[in-house]
């Protein structure tokens, strides 16, 4: 099977995010970068499919030079090769267009994306990518089976589950619950260095980035008031104090 997994490098969920003074984005200095957690589910599913059916997994990522670290992480988990699209940042449409241009030549049987990236939280790229490649897409997948040349995907909806059968090739966007992503292994880390990664810029992909949307302003959320620890040994008294605070101070009950 020819499998593609798209990954994005995002700030660690524990990183302290500061918005730039001019509101144009976030301060990037001193931030720890990681693979978008939803993309990890995609990579893991891609690796499992490969282990079952044979074939190879190609990792595709768009981002600045540091995005290479995330590609290497996926290679250390077991993917075969990577494509690094060296466009620092773009809106969702242009990101999907860049990915589509890089993936086109590969003719994959299946493409994985995370259901959204935890930094911009837009959840659009997987669907736009499918559209641009003329492929069906199943979003928010928590279970996947490939049989008889079809993808059978489970997707939770309010109070129920949908079982969706899709023709292949298709795009799957991965949701938490799909699997438990593996850790990179030491031998995997050693091998990752030697695996091929194609580095391509916009020109090499034959695209030009013409933004369709732009971030006008980014503002930090209001600062949270400091927490309160309710002291004392008597659980009943502590609960009463908590109820009082919830009513009088937090005004939530």
């Amino acid at each position, binding site marked *: 099977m020819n499998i593609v997994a798209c990954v994005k490098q995002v700030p660690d969920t524990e990183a302290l995010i500061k918005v730039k003074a001019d509101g144009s984005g976030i301060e990037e*200095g*001193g931030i720890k970068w990681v693979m978008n957690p939803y993309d990890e589910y995609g990579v893991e599913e891609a690796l499992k499919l490969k282990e079952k059916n044979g074939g190879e997994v190609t990792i595709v990522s768009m981002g600045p030079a540091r995005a290479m*670290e995330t590609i290497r992480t996926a290679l250390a988990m077991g993917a075969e090769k990577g494509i690094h699209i060296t466009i620092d940042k773009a809106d969702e449409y242009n990101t999907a267009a860049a990915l589509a241009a890089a993936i086109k030549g590969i003719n994959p049987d299946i493409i994985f994306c995370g259901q959204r990236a935890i930094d911009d939280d837009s959840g659009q790229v997987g669907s736009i990518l499918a559209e641009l490649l003329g492929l069906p897409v199943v979003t928010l997948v928590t279970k996947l089976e490939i049989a008889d040349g079809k993808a059978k995907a489970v997707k939770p909806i309010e109070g129920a589950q949908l079982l969706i059968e899709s023709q292949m090739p298709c795009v799957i966007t991965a949701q938490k619950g799909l699997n438990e992503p593996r850790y990179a*292994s*030491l031998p995997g880390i*050693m091998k990752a260095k030697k695996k091929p990664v194609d580095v391509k810029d916009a020109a090499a992909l034959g695209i030009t980035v013409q933004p369709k949307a732009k971030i006008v302003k980014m503002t930090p959320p209001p600062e949270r008031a400091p927490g309160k620890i309710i002291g004392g040994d008597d659980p009943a008294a502590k609960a009463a104090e908590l109820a009082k605070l919830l009513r009088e101070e937090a005004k939530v009950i």
Partner: protein
Amino acid sequence: MGEKFISERNLRFLLYEVFDAVSLTRYPYYADHSREMFDMVLETAMRIGKDMLYPTLGEMDKNPPELAGDHVKVHPVVRTFMRECGEGGWISAIAPMERGGQQLPSIVNFVPNGIFAAANYSASVYLLLTSEASHLIESFGSDELKETFIPRMFSGEWQGTMALTEPQAGSSLADIATVAEPTDEGYYRMRGQKIFISGSDHDGVDNVVNLMLARIKGAPAGVRGISLFVVPKKRVGENGELVFNDINVTGLYHKLGYRGCPINQLSMGEADDCRGYLVGEPHKGLAYMFQMMNAARLAIGLGAAAIASAAYYASLEYSQVRLQGRRMTEKDPATPQIPIIEHADVKRMLLFQRSVVEGSLSLIAQCYQYSDLAIVSEGDEKERYSLLLDLLTPVAKSYPSEMSILSVSQGLQILGGYGYCDEFPLEQYYRDTRIHPIHEGTTGIHGTTLLGRNVTMKDGRALQLFLEEVQKTIGAAEALDELKPSAQKLRDALEKLQGVTAHLLDIAKEGNREVFLADATLYLELFGIITIAWQWLLQAVPVQKALRNTDGLSETDVAFYHGKMYTFRYFFGYELPKADGLIRRLMETDGLTVEMKAAYFSD
């Protein structure tokens, strides 16, 4: 609430800015590695620590191992972790590639080991023991032993142990009495009892491989009659099946802390069917075992520093949110209370912890660097690094072990009453870390080793090399104005250490060995303080260089370097002066403790 237990930033600082681990890749032996890989090792280990180990820290303490019939039941995460360590290659990390390892430098392997120990010390021990026991077979075992045992240990299916201690032979290994009787079949029939053997039976693995010291029947008394054996819990039968090897768990000890890993009492040969396989030559067992013991000693120093690190971050976080009291200058009781981290005395306690944690980690990394350099160098140079490693091992084991207790205690103090209660992990860390000055040789034993053996080995060459290393750092620090006064302080302390050493060696020459070694533990303490001061000066050099031009640095980096400088100054201002009291005592040598009679302790 964050759940930080170790600083990734500090690990990177040690690895790249202080010890330049990447420079090791110049040597052919390490040429396949790169910084990119080292980073991935760190990140992967952090994830395992955060996702798998830290969440079970408290559970493993509250549900300690139990004896369930004929075997010991442990927390299920042990099996998950051991499997991950096998599949992930963490057990075989530093083993040579030709043996299925990854040939990782020890100074890099220090990172996952430190992370795992900080996340959950008990869990980390299963990995360490297996890794070190397999290296021992690899170094001295026959091909057959290697083929039978190493792959299953590397894969995490079989646990490794070190089985030395017996009821009458704790510190005094010369008194080991377990007997190995030769047979015509190539194996030995083992009989005896071991106590306190960590990980020597549990259901997180399919088999246990004990590296056991015993005496071949008729062997000479003392350490010259001790041999090393592989004694598995289940031996491999003729058709590859596993057969019970007549080792019974006769007891499980209930411990103060570090409760997630069992220490068992073992009885070998109750049915006269316990087989042991000799490793290397007869009567050389203790010398072989020293390889594992020395590795374990560094790992224990690291474990102690790691627990202190977890305690430091837990107390730091608390100090930032606990509101109590007002500034000394604030007279108005209606003003809001301030976070306790604003109080100078709380900052003192935080600085103390950080100075112990980061000073200890630095010394341990230094030892691993010597160990790596000893592998890739030859001749004189190789000897140089081996001697430095040998000299410093008791210090790198004992300073962190003893100081971790005090450090965690200060962390607990920062939480006040909550520190004493089990809603916060401080009380567990306090109990967990208390083991370190006891196992792998008590602090007393290491004091005697340092003063009675190491400082005079090879005619004092090891000590000479150490002095040169410290002087090299003093030289580098003197080139930076801000560090000059501290460099001078260390130079003075080093001179005094030489004076004390010469004085004590004179007493030894006069033939009074008992008085000579009476305060060896204090000598080790003194040596420890000066060694850690050296490591702080060594760290201060790149810190100062970085602070000269902060233009390209992020805010977090600048804060990190300033924090380092204050902690460095704290160590020189608060800890190094403690050397003076020790020096005064050590120069006195009136033989007080030798003369005091046991009978006078009548009341």
